[in-house]
């Protein structure tokens, strides 16, 4: 039987796309808490099957890695994106910058579910439908 944790090609993954709200720089915020919850819930599934992508809107000030949850750099250092300087990501996707959202994208690039930023239980329930927990 193939070893799912190391033999899979680099595609075929689920992606959790988190569109944070503008409160990201506050450590107690919904955005920060959600990012930590998402990192935690991915641990229940086979490694490398779920990838995180994180997009942020215009924020009140300049920031460094120290100003945001450590999980961002650990899980999504090269997939952490400014969503306003180029395309207006939030406008295109229909998401408010004050509310944010969490999107699960299937391996075929189709959207599976869109949850409010503060409801990671929807995200977890969806993933459990698709992927075996370890």
């Amino acid at each position: 039987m193939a070893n799912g944790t190391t033999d899979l090609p680099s595609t075929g993954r689920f992606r959790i796309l988190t569109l944070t709200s503008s409160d990201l720089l506050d450590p107690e915020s919904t955005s920060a808490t959600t990012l930590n919850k998402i990192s935690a819930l991915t641990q229940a599934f086979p490694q490398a099957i779920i990838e995180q992508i994180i997009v942020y809107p215009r924020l009140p000030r300049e920031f460094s890695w120290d100003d945001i949850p450590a999980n961002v750099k650990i899980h999504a250092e090269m997939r952490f994106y400014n969503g306003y300087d180029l395309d207006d990501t939030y406008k295109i996707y229909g998401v408010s910058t004050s509310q944010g959202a969490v999107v699960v994208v299937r391996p075929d690039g189709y959207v599976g579910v869109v949850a409010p930023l503060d409801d990671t239980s929807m995200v977890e329930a969806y993933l459990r439908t698709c992927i075996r927990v370890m």
Partner: protein
Amino acid sequence: MNVSMMDSYNLAWKLAYWINGLSPTASNGNIPEPVLKTYEIERRSNAQQLIDFDRKFSTLFSGHFDDQGESGLSHEEFIQVFYTGNGFSSGCGVEYPENILVVRDFTGGIVSNPIQGEDYLSGVLRPGRRLLNVKVKRYADGWHRDIQDGLSRAP
């Protein structure tokens, strides 16, 4: 041919997950895997829509414009049919019906919907539709990227 490519792409990941023991019931071969069943739910509905559409579209070439709408298509219908046809040809108009992999309402509408607007073809998020590509700027190094860059090949 585009449609068959999409059929394959839809099935491929579901099969791969099941074969590699990643889908929820894969460890018990006696239980039919619900994820595999979604292939038919999703792609059959798309195929049926295409057949229905082709039937209508072919009248464009054989029929004539008829304002009464009795034996041909009205101008409004023609525009609608053409618009829909582009959605099929490009694959961008596909919207899968709700099923276990396409979830639009978890809690009977109690949870507030974070999506504003309904212009899905222009990119508004909709479960069952493809994620539209957007151009983003990576924080780590300032590189301009397509959000799809991370989705379809290794970063």
